[in-house]
């Protein structure tokens, strides 16, 4: 699973590079616009270590942001699963906020909190929180009637049991949603770093952009892709292990 994800990314990345090279040589673009493969290789080699730690820094913020989002989304999703006023209100609010580009709110956070870890974390968490929340509300508010019926009619249903039943029955969906939110968390962190931050791969991309250094940008993209693929692969592997442990059927 992990290897397949990395391989898929390598294929996509290689295709992108080939496309750039076709563009470069067919339009006879200068090395300043699109560097030659050798330039990309040399630049990549030179900055790989620095960018590796920058990406690791970004990923660690994204992971923490994602964990916060998952916890928040579960808390709110569980609270909003009933068709009460509060539940309906939270659902409607989540749908509306989801439709709003969170990135546009990022400057306000920078103005209020300045650049740094907390700001990056909040933006990462915000960007992956709302899609997660909507999925989790959807899953938690859908009764599993065939299982819940007995507990309801015998007055044995407790909210913990209800949540456990719904989470168990939708385990694959939950794993897919959480794994998918990785990309959002990473994108959120990079956007935050790109707007204003003093570290992280987004910050490095911003510097490379000011220098119009496509080799550096491509190296950063390569590392981001590899890191996301590995992390998503690990999440899916962990999800599969949990599923097997719980005997979740496919």
């Amino acid at each position, binding site marked *: 699973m992990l290897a397949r994800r990395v391989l898929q990314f390598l294929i996509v990345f290689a295709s992108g590079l080939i496309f750039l090279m076709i563009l470069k040589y067919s339009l006879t673009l200068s090395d300043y616009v699109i560097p030659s493969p050798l330039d990309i290789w040399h630049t990549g080699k030179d900055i790989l270590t620095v960018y590796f730690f920058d990406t690791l820094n970004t990923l660690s913020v994204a992971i923490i942001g994602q964990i916060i989002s998952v916890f928040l989304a579960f808390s709110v999703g569980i609270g909003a699963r009933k068709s009460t006023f509060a539940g309906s209100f939270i659902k409607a609010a989540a749908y509306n906020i989801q439709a709003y580009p969170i990135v546009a709110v990022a400057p306000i956070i920078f103005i209020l909190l300045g650049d740094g870890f907390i700001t990056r974390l909040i933006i990462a968490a915000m960007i992956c929180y709302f899609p997660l929340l909507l999925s989790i509300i959807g899953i938690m508010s859908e009764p599993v009637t*065939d*299982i819940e*019926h*007995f507990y309801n*009619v*015998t007055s*044995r249903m407790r909210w913990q049991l209800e949540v*456990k*039943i719904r989470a*168990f*029955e939708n385990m694959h969906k939950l794993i897919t949603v959480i794994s998918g939110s990785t990309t959002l968390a990473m994108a959120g962190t990079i956007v935050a770093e790109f707007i204003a931050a003093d570290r992280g791969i987004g910050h490095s991309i911003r510097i490379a952009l000011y220098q119009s250094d496509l080799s550096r940008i491509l190296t950063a993209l390569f590392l981001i892709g590899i890191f996301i693929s590995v992390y998503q692969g690990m999440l899916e592997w962990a999800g599969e292990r949990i599923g097997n442990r*719980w*005997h*979740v*059927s496919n």
Partner: protein
Amino acid sequence: MILSLTNLTFQYPDTEIPVFRTLNFSLDSPGFHALFGASGVGKTSFARIVAGELTGFSGQLYIKDKSIVLYSYNQERLPGWGTIRHFIDSTTPSSMIEMKKQLIDIFGLSDCINLRFSQLSLGQKNRVNLIRYLLQEFDLLIMDESLANVDERLRETIILKIKESFPDRYFLYISHNLMEITKFSDTILIFRDIEKIPQTLTLKGLDIASREMPDRDRLETTVLEVMNAC
């Protein structure tokens, strides 16, 4: 009398034809009673109305004060994260522990009690589901095809055990097995098409309580009565 329905009329929203029109029925004595009829005539809707799971009907529904009515159906499942033993134990009142052991044995589930629900056959799943309902406190238990996919002989054993163990409770058994209904039921409420008047008929079954073969002529006569009534 635990249950009485007078002039029950029910129609699902956004449909043009009612499921029942002025249906009358009462359940006077404890025992094993049945609902019989072709698919789609309203047996399950009737059962869910009696159990309080379906509203929007007109007419009068009387259920004796504080009576507990449970409705079980054959597609119910147990959660998948534990064994059958775990879920049955966790929902069995302490007063029913001895009964639990007996039912597990008689229902032929001793060998699969440590398996998970998804590992059982369809017949085993239905038996497990029925057991957990039988172990609850109830006055009337509606069993909607609760013994589907169970072989004939074991079905008889189970029905006889239910009749023997719970003589003071009411059961409403929904099944498409004509012979079984006829042999073991006390009262049989037959559901017919909405166009037929009356829509339901009540007949007496043989109410057999042991494995003894009933009188052949009586059995044939009752089976024919039920068939003709449909």
